[in-house]
């Protein structure tokens, strides 16, 4: 392992090169960890839903806890109208959470620390929410940019601000997750490098920092998955129930 803290984020090809219509779609370490995370989710849900016990086993309890957690999050933020989107938000939350958590393992790769990954998810959510909004409300959906109860003088300004904030949603959503994951992992790597370079005499201080940061990063990994999912719920709520 090199001392460069950014090197952990490099993507490299695994196996043969796959080239479709001049585009390089090779299987990479990023793809591998996406597959690993998805497999872990499916394993958890498979064993969590295999036995139908009245008193759940431990793994069943975990799966059901995730289910009720996400279900409660959706019903709290977006109401009962958002029920058809529950599987999507559940998948999204689980995928981001597991990618973040798998990324916490040493020598692993953090899928969500890449802006392209988070941006694609955020853009999909943004486009889907906008489409849902227009399907449900037609052109009345544009009233989301015109808040009620604002003085007429301020209205043009507020509308412009609302449009900008709406359009910046995918950027903020994706950059928040990507930057959090990247910064955390970089910091862990830097402190890890301190431990090595300061050796057995001076390395204890950065090591203790490293331990504390690992705990913090696990918290951040969960929190960012939660934030990502709950913001999706909030955007969906805007599209389903026009409150403005």
């Amino acid at each position, binding site marked *: 392992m*090199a*001392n*460069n*803290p*950014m*090197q952990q*984020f*490099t*993507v490299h*090809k695994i196996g043969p090169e*796959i080239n479709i219509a001049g*585009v*390089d*779609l*090779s*299987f*990479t370490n*990023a*793809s591998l960890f*996406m*597959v690993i995370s*998805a497999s872990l*989710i*499916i394993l958890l*849900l*498979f064993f*969590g*839903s295999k036995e*139908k016990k*009245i008193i759940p086993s431990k793994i*069943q309890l975990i*799966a*059901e806890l995730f*289910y*009720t957690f996400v279900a409660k999050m959706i019903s709290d933020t977006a109401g009962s109208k958002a029920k058809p989107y*529950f*599987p*999507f938000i*559940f*998948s999204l939350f*689980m*995928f981001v959470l597991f990618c973040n958590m798998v990324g916490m393992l040493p020598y692993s790769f953090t*899928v969500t*620390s*890449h*802006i*392209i*990954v988070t941006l*694609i*998810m955020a853009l999909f959510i943004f486009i889907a929410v906008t489409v849902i909004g227009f399907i449900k409300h037609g052109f009345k959906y544009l009233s989301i940019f015109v808040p009620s109860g604002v003085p007429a003088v301020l209205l043009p300004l507020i509308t412009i601000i609302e449009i900008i904030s709406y359009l910046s949603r995918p950027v903020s959503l994706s950059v928040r997750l*990507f930057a959090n994951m*990247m910064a955390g992992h970089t910091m862990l790597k*830097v402190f890890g*490098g*301190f431990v090595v*370079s*300061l050796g057995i005499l*001076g390395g204890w*201080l*950065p090591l203790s920092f490293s331990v504390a940061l690992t705990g913090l990063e696990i918290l951040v990994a969960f929190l960012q998955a939660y934030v990502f999912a709950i913001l999706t719920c909030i955007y969906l709520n805007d599209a389903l129930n026009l409150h403005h």
Partner: protein
Amino acid sequence: MKSFLSLSIAFAAINTNLYSAEAGMPQLDPKYWASQAFWLVLVFIILYISISKFYLPKIKSNLDNRENKIKEDLENANKFKEQSELKIKEYKLILDKTKKEVNKILFDSKNALDKDIQNKKEVIEKEIEKEILKAQKEISELKKNSVSSIQNISENITSNIIENVSGDKLNESSIKAAVEEISKKNLSKYL
């Protein structure tokens, strides 16, 4: 401690500077963007389909089953509770009724006993009165008889005394008259 820390940071910074030139931010290298996007979409679609088609319905039915079971059990428990409360009410009613009956029986038997005792008492009192009357009659008869017999005895004694003292025999009627006179005077002291 502070200088030590800053020294170590500077040292590490120099160290990392040696290597940082080769990479920068790998995230901004577009070489594998298409690949990442492709695999992300593929993996996520598979994940989404398997979750929404297989696992979520299973977990949901599981949770629903449990909720229904709990609801059913609670309903049953409530039913049993109501039943037991009814039974308790019935039991209390029966208990009250029997208590009343017992009181009545007690009251009745007490009354009957009292009456019986009263009757017997009256009968006995009557008998006692009768006996007392009889005894009084006998006593008064005895008194009368005793007066006449006392007179006879005193007449005999008087005639005997007179005979012995004077040797004469007085006629009985005069003695009788004298004794009667004296006994009338003195007998009232004793009777």
